[in-house]
């Protein structure tokens, strides 16, 4: 008599490999040398790649830094208005359709209100690309920090304070270092999310090839133009890039998790 959970466990390998792993494999299987040549020979591809990595990394760093600040409020100012609003809004960018997010950013930071900062405000620049990425990926970093704090936070802070630290000192010296795994995880999430952001970036960033176009949009344009081989090559490259980043970050956390001595 096979139990419910045995059934679920048995279902896992086929479901995972079929719906998650196989599409990725299909992408690689459709790779052709000509596609690679087309993609790699296109300067717009390289500028899209460079811009995407640069902005995604910057957005992720910003996201993690902001999340650390958010964590302080989570620990010490749980009842404050700022925390409650921030916590509530955390879920919003994820639920918001991406074109709406892009439009919101454009209206806010475009030349209507920010005319003094340049002819288009902040819009249509790499800064805009970074901001759009930050907007959609920050909530992921914040949630990662929140989860990490739940595991770690309170006790450490209490002890540090009895040893003379103010709440801010305790947070900086003891909590944040202990959050290393959560922070790296948050960075990873934010970076990956930023890498794949598309609609918001286009609307606010401008999507000019060679200047403000990101990799996701480049691939999409290639597909629509019928250059499927180049699109596949660019997509596989994107995938390899993401895997490389994941591997890098995991190596920093000590081979996917710390070991704790027992007893």
């Amino acid at each position, binding site marked *: 008599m096979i139990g419910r959970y045995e059934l679920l466990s048995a279902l896992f390998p086929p479901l995972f490999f079929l719906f998650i792993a196989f599409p990725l494999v299909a992408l690689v299987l459709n790779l052709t040398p000509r596609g690679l040549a087309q993609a790699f020979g296109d300067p717009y591809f390289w500028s899209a790649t460079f811009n995407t990595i640069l902005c995604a990394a910057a957005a992720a760093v910003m996201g993690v830094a902001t999340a650390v600040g958010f964590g302080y409020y989570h620990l010490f100012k749980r009842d404050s208005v700022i925390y409650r609003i921030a916590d509530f809004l955390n879920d919003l960018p994820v639920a918001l359709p991406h074109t709406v997010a892009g439009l919101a950013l454009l209206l806010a930071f475009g030349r209507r209100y920010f005319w003094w900062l340049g002819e288009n405000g902040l819009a249509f620049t790499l800064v805009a690309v970074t901001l759009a990425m930050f907007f959609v990926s920050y909530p992921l970093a914040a949630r990662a920090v929140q989860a990490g704090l739940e595991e770690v936070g309170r*006790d450490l802070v209490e002890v540090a304070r009895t040893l003379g630290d103010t709440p801010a000192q305790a947070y900086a010296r003891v909590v944040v270092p*202990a959050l290393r795994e959560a922070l790296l995880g948050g960075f990873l999430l934010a970076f990956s999310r930023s890498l794949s952001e598309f609609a918001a970036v286009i609307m606010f960033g401008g999507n000019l090839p060679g200047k403000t176009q990101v990799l996701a949009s480049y691939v999409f344009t290639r597909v629509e133009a019928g250059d499927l081989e180049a699109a596949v090559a660019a997509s596989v490259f994107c995938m390899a890039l993401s895997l490389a980043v994941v591997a890098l970050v995991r190596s920093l956390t000590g081979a996917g998790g710390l070991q704790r001595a027992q007893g």
Partner: protein
Amino acid sequence: MLKVENVHFSYGDRTVLRGVSLDVEPGEVRVILGPNGSGKSTLLRIVAGILRPDRGRVVIDGEDVTDRPPEDRRVGYVPQHPTLFPHLTVKDNITYSLRNGRGDPDQLDELVEMLELGEHLDRRPDELSGGYQSRVALARALFSDPRVLLLDEPLSDVDLAAKRDLVKRFRRALRRSDAPALYVTHDPWEAERVGDSYTVLLDGRSVDADTVDEALERLRRGAPVGEGS
């Protein structure tokens, strides 16, 4: 000298402490006994400054510290789980209070010797067993030159075999410090070895006792008691 005067505390509508008072002299180790949920940890956290009492005062060396945050009270706190700083070595854990100008670097060797931590100074907390982590936690608290010591079941993570030896060491270490100490434990044997005097928490109120047997008798009876003496 530690004075706790008529302290009341509730978690929401659950009243845990209703008028607890005690006096502890310098160098005295007061063992706190009581059933689970009787507020022993709460009492310690109130003295440490982590919780603010609804009513009552905490006075340390004649100074009313009830409204002061933990960082201004100069207490040494050893919580129930050692809670060592995971990213720092044992040595850096112990000497942590130096960053805030507390503690004497020359004291380190003595403490390390007393608690036999010499070989582990450069290790990380997750490399140590429960017993050794407790030692480090105590050393860290002692090093900070506290006016009051608060130990919340410091040996609960320690296995029985190591416990006997550790109790002796702890006793010796507490003796060297002249700070009044509150020591929570469930273990009557440990209570007897370590304590100079005893307080039982029952039903949110405290009763003092001079011997372990007297204290255990009170506990067993579970009789409602008047205000602490």
